[in-house]
């Protein structure tokens, strides 16, 4: 049969579309089903954060980091304060380090729950989405208990924290872990090993390791391609070197290595690893200690610059800070993991169907707040 091509249709997915995970606009060329080109247009959520940061003091930058990756604010706070502390060569108390790790790992679980849930929603499974939101809610409750906020915390400060842990936090965290650990099995039953879900995600949007590396993809997306790279393990910051945990990587269990299913499963397994870290941290945490290390009210880092990267739920978040010795940063640049994840979309999404592109986009777990900044 000769190949007869239909006319190509230019279709806009976004900015107001149910599955663009924010205000992303994808302009795709399609002949009805097969996608021949994907052009992402970003900037709909651009709030000039980096420029703002050049006009506020160092401590006032923290709320901006909250609002970048608004699904993993704790991790963003963490990245910034770790960079600042290294620039200023401050050592923070033990208890603070533990609390930070606990918060960051809880945040990782919460963020992955949202990523997995919306991914399920993208392939049409509605119920797992709400199950995951139900459990995410418990984590948010704990954050609320700690610092009063549920989404944007402004919790980690340079040299310390805004509040100490409330009374009963450790117990309630253990209760949550006991509740949550069996739930992972439930997610496996309802979604991960569902036949239709495997059909939809296995072998779809395969991202080979070399493509992932050359695009600078990081985090669970990179590990889904089988590259064992986790900054918590490979360049340990804070106190991550004290904990015993694995770095789950994709093994191509249901299809080619680096497909959507692998990325999904890496996130799911990672939640289990976070539980491991949390259990260790919650046991080892010093009972008492001041969380407000005495540092000057106005932070004046020495002249110089620092680039520090940390592992957020989405991957490799880097902060490049240039200090000219004044209380206001001279330049602050964020290297956002979601941005690189989005840039690979055209490469791995081309030639797939419209529904696959939605699935691939869901599997990359982008957050537009962080891309546009």
């Amino acid at each position: 049969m000769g190949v007869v091509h239909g006319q190509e249709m230019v279709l806009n997915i976004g900015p107001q579309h149910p599955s663009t995970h924010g205000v992303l606009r994808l302009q795709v060329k399609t002949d009805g089903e097969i996608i021949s080109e994907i052009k992402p247009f970003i900037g709909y959520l651009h709030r000039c954060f980096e420029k703002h940061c050049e006009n506020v003091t160092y401590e006032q930058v923290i709320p901006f980091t909250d609002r970048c990756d608004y699904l993993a604010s704790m991790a963003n706070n963490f990245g910034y304060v770790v960079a600042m502390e290294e620039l200023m060569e401050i050592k923070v108390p033990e208890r603070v380090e533990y609390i930070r790790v606990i918060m960051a790992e809880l945040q990782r679980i919460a963020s992955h729950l949202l990523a997995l849930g919306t991914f399920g929603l993208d392939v049409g499974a509605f119920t797992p989405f709400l199950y995951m939101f139900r459990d995410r809610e418990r984590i948010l409750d704990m954050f609320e208990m700690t610092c009063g906020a549920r989404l944007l915390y402004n919790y980690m400060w340079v040299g310390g924290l805004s509040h100490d842990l409330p009374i009963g936090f450790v117990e309630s965290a253990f209760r949550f872990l006991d509740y949550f650990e069996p739930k992972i099995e439930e997610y496996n039953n309802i979604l991960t090993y569902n036949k239709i879900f495997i059909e939809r995600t296995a072998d779809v949007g395969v991202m080979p390791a070399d493509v992932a590396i050359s695009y600078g993809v990081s985090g669970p997306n990179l590990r889904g391609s089988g590259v064992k790279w986790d900054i918590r393990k490979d360049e340990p910051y804070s106190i991550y070197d004290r904990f015993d945990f694995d770095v789950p990587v994709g093994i191509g269990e249901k299809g080619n290595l680096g497909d959507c299913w692998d990325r999904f499963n890496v996130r799911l397994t990672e939640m289990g690893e976070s539980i491991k870290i949390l259990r260790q941290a919650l046991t080892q945490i010093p009972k008492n200690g001041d969380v407000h290390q005495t540092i000057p009210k106005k932070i004046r880092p020495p002249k110089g610059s620092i680039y520090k990267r940390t592992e957020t739920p989405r991957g490799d978040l880097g902060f490049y800070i240039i200090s000219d010795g004044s209380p206001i940063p001279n330049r602050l640049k964020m290297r956002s993991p979601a941005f690189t994840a989005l840039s690979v979309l055209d490469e791995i999404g081309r030639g797939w169907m419209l529904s696959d592109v939605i699935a691939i986009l869901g599997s990359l777990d982008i957050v537009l707040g962080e891309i546009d900044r």
Partner: protein
Amino acid sequence: MIENYFPIFIVFIVAAGFTFVSLIMTHILGPRITNPVKLMPYESGVDPLAETRIRFSIRFFIIALLFIIFDIEIIFLYPWAVVFKDFLSFGSFIFFEMVIFLAILVFGYVYVWRNGALDWE
């Protein structure tokens, strides 16, 4: 015979009446405050980029053509199925008759499959 269909005619009148009354009612009851932006076809919040009514993928036509062919064959099976039990008293001819018919159908089906008309790319 034909009076069996009379109730269906009444059902049609009731269903159509309900449908059209609702259409008219909503036309009367609803507000009408239009502006060009509201009337613009939805394209995820941006102005429509290109023509909507274009030549689209040939596969949809192929599916439609295949459907017509197979559906007609299935329609032929219905009268056969109705009289099948009665005709069995005359021997197994009716069975083998249909086996031949189905064999031709399956031959066409295999041909279509081998040519890739059932594959979506």
